[in-house]
Structures are given as C-alpha cells and as structure tokens.
C-alpha cells in the first residue's frame, strides 16, 4: 500500500463522517428528538447500573470507612450485617504474628431504641469498639472517640432515620433497658446495617447486651506492619489460626460482598433486567431514528449508489450516523446521570457514584447499541434501487 492510498482512505473516512453529519443536521428538529431519545436511554442505563452497584456498595460502606489490611471473621460469615462470631483469643493469636501491627475487636448488636417518634421503638444497630484505638477513617468519629469512654454514651450516625427522634448531643435515650446519652454525631451512612446506627465503647456494649460476652467478637480488623504483603500475611494467618476463622484481604472482602448482594438477593435480577431493557429501548430509539432517516433519504442513497458509491460505503455512512447520534447523546446523559446520582445519594442514602470503569462500560454499551441499531436499519438501505428511483 502506498502512502497516497492511505491518504485517500483517510479522506474518504472524513468525507463519510461529513456526509453523515450533513444528513443529521439536515433536519435539526428530528435529530434533536433522536438525541433526546438516546439521551434518555443512556441515562436509564447509567441509573440502573448505578443502583446495581450501589446496593453492594451500600453493603461495603462500613468496610470502606474502616482502617484495616485484613479482616478476621468467623467461618459463618455471610455478609457485613450477618458476620457470625469468633473467640476473642483468635485476635491475640493474630497479634502475636510477626506481620501484624494491630488487631482490634468490633462488636455488633441490634437493640430497641425505645425513644422513637410516636412512641415507636425502631431497631438500632449498635457497634461496640475500643475507644482508645481509632480504626475508623471518619474524622468526626476519631475526634469524638474520647466521649465514648464515658459509660452509656453513644455516637449516632447522622443518617439515622427521623423516626428515631432528635439526635441532639446530650439527649438521653433508652436503648434496650438502659438510658444512653447521645455524645455526638458523625457522618458515615447506615448502609444496610439498619435504620439507625450508633457507636459505643466495648464496656457500654457489654451493658447494653448483658447476655453477650465480650469474648465473642463479630469482626477483627487487622493492620499489618508497613511493607508487609497482605496476601502473604493472609496466607500465614490462615495457617496460624485454623479453619474456624476466615481472613479476608480487602479485595476478597469486596468480591464476597458484591457476590452476596448480586446473587443471594433479588438486587442483581431487578437492576440487571432493568439494565437489559434500557439497553433494548436504546436500540429501538436509535433504530427508529435511523430507519426514518434512511427511508427519507432513500432517493439520495440510491443516487449515490447510481453514481458509483459502493454499498459498503453507504452502510458505513449509516453506521456513522448511528455512532454520531449516540456520541452526541452520551455527553448530556453523562452530565444528567451525575446530577441524578447526587439526588439519589441524598434521597436514598445509597452510595451511588460514577467511576471510570462504569463510564467506559456504558460508553462501550452505547457504541454496541448504535452498531446493532445500524445493522438493523441496513435492510431498508438495501432497498435503495437506482433503477426504481425516477
């Protein structure tokens, strides 16, 4: 292939985009409609995808805000809110390992918050921790940890639902059978832990749940010494601790939570099917537009055929139109999705967020959508017969 030929190919491709652009801008009102349709379809894909990932992300909320390299759990671990229990002694054994810098205990419990609105007693998720060891990444928690050293004092998540009544510092509420003072608030989000979440010290936890022993721990976040490889340390600890406890690296934990929410619950199916339908709707919208354009421009296409354009080249034009529509529709859809994500975050407290892989995935899906629509509408193009034209 000579340089000249390559150059010609480039010119042709540019010309094809130009032709597609001219066809699209010929009837602006119609093109704007098509783009609006594509915009909605792509937006819906973003939204469904957002929910699809937001649910497991909601399950990851606590872990994302905890400082640890490895997490120790019981071998009965299901997901974060149902982790099972293991003996506290396992944490001491882990601490004795040369790789481990720190291993702390977290306790989970559920209790009646007997000071709700309208005389109701909603369930509150109680997390017990050692206030001398800051293991949260949340500033507001670490700053207020000292408050928890006071017995029967709790920090309350500000995302706790209104039915729990005011969360003002100093308010005394009844949790289970005990009076507990609200020592402050922090912002983390309740995720799937429940309608309300509070933090208390281990000692207060033991008083709230007198039938539970502090010897049984729910989660054991482990911090490793600097430079230690988490995978290797995890393998070492597994050998050291035996099969009754599980050791997760952060990656393994995330995979486990995502798998739980997408396969064990209806979440995957609900948003998965929404995703598929919005994809098909997107195809229908683009196809609708293309088929209309092609049938309207049929004489012109036939003329192009007559003056020697190959079918492949005309197909290329249709595909280019299709790609142009979706690319133009993609940009505002992305902008609107970012807006809707923030509304959803505020309204539902689910951590819906845009990530680069997600953006790329939707963009690729959009291109696939455009290609399928284009292939579907090529049939009408075949009917362009110069002989029938005039």
């Amino acid at each position: 292939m000579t340089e000249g030929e390559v150059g010609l190919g480039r010119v042709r491709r540019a010309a094809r985009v130009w032709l597609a652009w001219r066809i699209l801008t010929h009837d602006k009102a119609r093109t704007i409609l098509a783009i609006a349709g594509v915009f909605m379809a792509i937006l819906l894909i973003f939204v469904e995808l957002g929910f699809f990932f937001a649910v497991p992300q909601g399950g990851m909320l606590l872990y994302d805000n905890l400082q640890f390299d490895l997490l120790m759990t019981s071998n009965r671990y299901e997901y974060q809110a149902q982790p099972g229990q293991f003996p506290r002694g396992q944490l001491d054994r882990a601490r004795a390992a040369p790789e481990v810098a720190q291993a702390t205990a977290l306790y989970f419990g559920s209790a009646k918050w007997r000071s709700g609105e309208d005389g109701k007693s909603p369930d509150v998720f109680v997390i017990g921790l050692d206030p001398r060891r800051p293991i949260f990444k949340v500033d507001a928690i670490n700053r207020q940890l000292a408050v928890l050293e006071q017995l029967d004092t709790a920090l309350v998540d500000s995302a706790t639902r209104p039915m729990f009544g005011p969360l003002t510092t100093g308010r005394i509420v009844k949790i289970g059978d005990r009076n507990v003072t609200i020592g402050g608030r922090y912002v983390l989000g309740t995720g799937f832990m429940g309608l309300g979440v509070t933090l208390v010290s281990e000692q207060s936890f033991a008083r709230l749940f007198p039938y539970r022993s502090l010897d049984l721990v729910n989660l054991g976040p482990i911090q490793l010494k600097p430079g230690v490889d988490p995978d290797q340390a995890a393998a070492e600890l597994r050998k050291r601790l035996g099969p009754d406890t599980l050791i997760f690296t952060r990656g393994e934990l995330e995979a486990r939570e995502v798998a739980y929410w997408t396969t064990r619950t209806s979440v995957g199916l609900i948003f998965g099917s929404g995703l598929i339908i919005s994809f098909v709707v997107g195809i229908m919208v683009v196809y609708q537009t293309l088929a209309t354009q092609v049938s309207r421009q049929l004489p012109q296409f036939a003329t192009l055929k007559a003056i020697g354009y190959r079918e492949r080249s005309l197909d290329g034009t249709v595909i280019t139109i299709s790609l142009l529509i979706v690319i133009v529709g993609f940009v505002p859809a992305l902008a609107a999705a970012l807006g809707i994500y923030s509304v959803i975050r505020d309204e539902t407290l689910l951590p819906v967020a845009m990530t680069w892989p997600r953006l790329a995935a939707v963009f690729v899906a959009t291109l696939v959508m455009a290609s399928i629509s284009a292939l579907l509408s090529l049939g009408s193009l075949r009917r362009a017969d110069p002989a029938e034209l005039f």
Partner: protein
Amino acid sequence: MLSWTGTSLLRRLWRPARFVPLAWRNLLANKPRLLRSSGGIGFAVLLILMQLGFERAFFNAALEIIHLLDGDIFLQSASKYRFATRDPFSRGELDAARAVSGVASAWPFYADWFDVFWKNPFDGKTFLVRVFAFDPDHPVLRLPEVKGRLAQLGDPDTAMVDRHARRFLGMDRGAAQSELNGLTVRIVGSFSLGPDFESDGTVVIGDRTYAKLLPGPGGGPPGVEAGVIKLRADSDPAAVQRALRAALPPGIAVLTKEQLLELERRFQADVSSAGPIFAMGTLVGFVVGMLIAYQIIYTDLTEQLPQYATMKAIGYRTSYLIRVVLEQAAFTGLAGWIPAWFLSVLLYRAVGELALLPMRMTADLTLISLGLTLGMCLISAILAVRRVIAADPAEVF
C-alpha cells in the same frame, strides 16, 4: 325485529368508521414502519410494566404475611414500628381480649426474624430465617398446606418449611430433618410463601417448639408478636375495636387488618428506597415512550402532509383531521402496548420464579400501563399535530 336491531347496532358501531378507517389505514399503510413503531413504544411500555411490577412485588412481599393472618382485629405492641421486628407482649393480654363482648376468639401468633438459624440439610451451612409459630389447636395462618399438618406440628420438634425460600437454604428438596439453632427438627411438610426483602426463607413451627427455641424472659412462655382476634358474626367491628382499646393497656395497639396493612405500607414507603427507585424507572420509560411516539407521529405527519392539505382543500375540517391524528396515535400506542403486556406477563413469571418475587399482572397494573401508554402517545400527537393545523393547501404543491 331482531335482525333490524342487529343492523342498527352494526350501523351504530360502524358509524365512526367514517373516520376510523383513515387512521387505521394510515397505520397499516407501511407495515415495516408499524412493526418498528410498535417495537419502540412496546419496549418503552415493557420498561414501565417491569418497573411497576417490581414496585408492587416489593410491597406485596412485605405485606404477604399480614394478608395471611386469619383474623378480623389484631393486637400488637404499640411501640412496634413494622411487622418484621420483634416487639412481643404478654400472652395474658389475650385473655383480657377474649373477655370483651363480641370477640369470638383471640389466639397468639409468634414470630421471629433475627434469632433463628436454619441449617441447610444438604450442605450443613446455617442461615438466618424467619420463624412463624402458633398453637396448632388454634391455627392463625391461612396457609392450606399448614392447616393440613396441624396434628404433626403439635408434636414437639417439628417444622414446616417454605419450598419457595431462596434455594441456598435447601428447603425445596424434601429433606426429612434439619436443625434450628442446633435443635434437631423433623420436617413434616412444606408450603409456598417466598422470601421478602428482609428474610430469605420461612419456617412454621408449633408453639411448643417455639417456646423451646426462644423461651420468654426467665425461661417463661415466649411473648406474643400479634394477637389474632375473630369477631362474632353479629358484632359491630368498630364497637368491638373500641371496647378492646378500653379493656387493654395503652401499650397494646388494636388494629383492623386494613390498619395493620397501612402501617406496614407507610413504613416501607417511608424508609425504603424502592418507591423512588421504581418511580424514576417508570418516569424514564414514559418520557422515552413519548419521544419515540413523537418521532413516529411527526414523521408520519410530514409524509402525509400533502394528503392532509388536500383533505383540507376539499373541505374537511381541521378538527376532523386532528381527530384522525389522535386516533392514529392511540392505535400506535395500542399496537405497542398489546405485545408489551403479553411479554411482561411472561417476564413477570420468569423473573418471579428466578427472583422469588410475587410479580403478578393485575387489572390495575393493566389499566395503569394502558393509561400511561395512551397518555404518552396522545401527548406526543397533540404536540405534533400543529403541523396539520398549519398545513396550507396552497403551499403544499
């Protein structure tokens, strides 16, 4: 006479035909386009139907157990904020209720959602399940299969399981025995209920087994989750409800079934994100459908503009032409809605089976989706019809 009436009826039915066939023929004039437009609108409608179906399923799953309670009036702790939470009251209150005139019977319903672990009999793994219990001599659940096994449930350490529970619980494969919190129980049968968004599976046991699993404070009898009251046939429900309120301490709420359902519905609508999530999906489906419909109608009008102008020129009124356009839009909508409705019935069944959700096509879902479909097509038609109004016979040619 009969035949005359028949002809007249036929003529009456046929009379709108003076304008119907035009819209109808326009619709059928281009079959591939009809297929395309009904496909486009159909998928938008399918999206709407799926979103609405999920929303209903979400609420229905939460309300299912309340529907199954076999009573007229219900007692529960006044501080109970939702059905699926433990907030028991003392069984003694039921004796007080029984003494109220107009009450035919008052029996306990026991339930727990967060303390009983079921062992999958096939892989030995344990999972949290919800447990319902009652006195087998006084059943309070309207589950026919359970009612057929009351004698067996009366034996200690027996259980019935939900064969529609999530599969990883292993309740659907007819095991003969398993464990609840380590207690070996004989499985005496199964029923079909399905999980909700809180629990993966359900176990029904007799009150004696329940007392063994979850004894009350100090090892005494367990607390009652709901008191199920039946009224005498001749009693006035409102009066009995008032009398019960007077006879019972303020810590006990006395509710009709509708009130109990409403409490749960309000709770779910308040705290769950399901309402807004599915409402947003429905709205997007509607807007996409509208855009597709507008595009279809607009294109069609553009193509038929000379014909409309000609009709205007030969004396047809604009109002008549507008009616043709609206009718055609309605037909297009129907052409999309009908296949979408059938497809959604199939999808409801498939998704319902796979996700174990109570997805049901109901008359009101049918009507709502039909209304939304016609709405989106007619709004689009009204927006697009300005072209016909503006069509100037003099300019067309």
